[in-house]
């Protein structure tokens, strides 16, 4: 039992951050799953986080009650952003969302109530199991969504928006919904990050979150929601592991691992297509006559 307790004490904060990062990854995945590369998650997180924290500081309500408020704030902002940004072509949209993050930081510094450059200390937090519980709720929602009409439509839009619209799917509407989901989850993640860090500064929500989260999603696999969570976990654990093995070069190790995965596993760790192909191949082997060494069996790319 003792080793478990030691492990828990040593890595509780790492686990908490892995959970929080899962929200950012899920938020990034939500838009990526309809074929949009957007960094706006960071802006939604900042909006949700600062609004939620102000709410707690101002009214003294339970931080748990501030979570829905942060999610709603993120969703509202993302709807407005979607109306403006979805008119842009995909790569311009990615750049515009990057510009949005840069502006967010300037706004945080200049708008009163955010603590400006000095930052804002957050006097409340949540127990670990609450973080896990909220993530569980998010996972259930993503799981149900992926099997719903929306999930199927989202996959169609991602593969080919033109084909999707000939099937009676309105790509713009699906993408707007994706943005709102991304905003709600991002706002929630922003508030949870504030509660985990217990401190907010203009640099809390900046380009580095956007980049690591995109990397986490692609690393985990951008074709399934589980990929986002696995990716976030790996990306949170990597620095800790590297810290233990080669302390002076932990960031370098992170970068090298990311590079290797991207080059050798371009579709990520969780890849539904590869898993399906794997099972299909095994089935083919089972059904094929014993003597025939069918090339189809080994044909899964």
């Amino acid at each position: 039992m003792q080793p478990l307790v030691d492990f828990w004490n040593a890595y509780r904060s790492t686990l908490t951050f892995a959970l929080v990062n899962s929200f950012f990854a899920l938020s990034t995945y939500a838009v990526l799953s309809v074929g949009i590369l957007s960094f706006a998650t960071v802006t939604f997180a900042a909006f949700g986080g600062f609004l939620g924290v102000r709410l707690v500081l101002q009214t003294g309500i339970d931080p748990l009650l501030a979570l829905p408020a942060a999610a709603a704030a993120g969703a509202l902002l993302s709807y407005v952003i979607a109306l403006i940004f979805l008119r842009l072509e995909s790569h311009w949209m990615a750049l515009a969302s990057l510009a949005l993050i840069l502006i967010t930081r300037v706004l945080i510094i200049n708008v009163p109530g955010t603590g400006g450059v000095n930052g804002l200390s957050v006097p409340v937090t949540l127990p670990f199991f609450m973080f896990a519980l909220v993530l569980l709720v998010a996972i259930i929602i993503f799981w149900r969504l992926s099997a719903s009409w929306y999930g199927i439509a989202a996959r169609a839009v991602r593969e080919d928006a033109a084909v999707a619209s000939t099937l009676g799917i309105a790509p713009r509407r699906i993408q707007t919904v994706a943005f709102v989901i991304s905003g709600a989850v991002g706002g929630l993640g922003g508030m949870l990050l504030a509660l985990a860090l217990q401190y907010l500064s203009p640099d809390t929500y900046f380009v580095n979150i956007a980049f690591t989260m995109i990397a986490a999603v692609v690393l985990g696999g951008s074709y399934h929601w589980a990929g986002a969570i696995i990716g976030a976990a790996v990306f949170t654990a990597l620095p800790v592991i590297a810290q233990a093995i080669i302390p002076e070069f932990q960031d370098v190790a992170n970068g090298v691992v990311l590079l290797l995965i991207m080059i050798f596993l371009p579709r990520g760790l969780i890849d539904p297509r590869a898993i399906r192909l794997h099972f299909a191949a095994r089935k083919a082997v089972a059904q094929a006559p014993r003597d025939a060494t069918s090339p189809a069996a080994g044909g899964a790319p």
Partner: protein
Amino acid sequence: MDLFLQQLINGLALGSLYALFGLGFGIVFATLGILNAAHGTYASWAAIIALAAVERLNLPFIPALLAGIFGGGLLALVVDQVAFQPLRRRAGGGMISALITSIAAWIILDSLAGTATGHQSLSFPRDSYPDTIFFVGGIPLPAIQIITVLSMLVVTVSLHLLIRRSRFGSAMRAVGWNQTAASLGGVNPRYVVVITAFLAGATSGFAGVLGGISTNNVSFHLGEGLMLKGFAAVVVGGYDDVRGTAVAGVALGVLEVMTAQYLSSGLRDGITYALLLGFLLLRPRGLFGSAGFSRA
């Protein structure tokens, strides 16, 4: 009035740095189609290499500058071959894969730069660069600012001539448009890509060394600052035209300095990023970009 003129000169010099950096960033974006998050580190490393050349090897200004520029170019070449070349062999993926490998390269190079400088902000020794200050009508005009503006002009004109008037430039534009079609036309895309990456790294490295001298700051923050502003210059200017980048970079520099002087220093970055977002939303091809240039 003197204050205004002096700030105008400061703005021009700062803007020239943004422009010079943006030129390198823009070539990679327009020709290789890569949004390269690691580009800022080329500038940081070029400055670190030049500083090492000055301090360890006691080289004079010009050779140290050249060492920095060459180092930046070489670094860009290595990053391109290690992080981007494996992706080119596979179909699809496109911008996202390259963006992520560039993030990986950025993490690696940034942390190595942090280690190399001991996580401090270093600066060039006073006697290692021309630090004369000319006075024109009572307005101070540091030599390094004049060098920065002139270098930017020379590099812009040469790059423009290279891209628009030379055979190699035609090959670059062809590869930027469509690699397969370019190779059908007798262009070796790999060769063009390697040279382009080197040129881009060298140009941004140039900005890094000059920026390191004029801001008295050689650290990994140097590249990060240049990167964000250079990116804005590329988008505002129109990324398939180097003249646009130069004009936009200088304009952004002047605007920033004037905003900090006459409005509020807190809005300094805001004005650049607001312009960046405004252009992306309303005129994505930028000031000088050609219509219909798009990369699928």
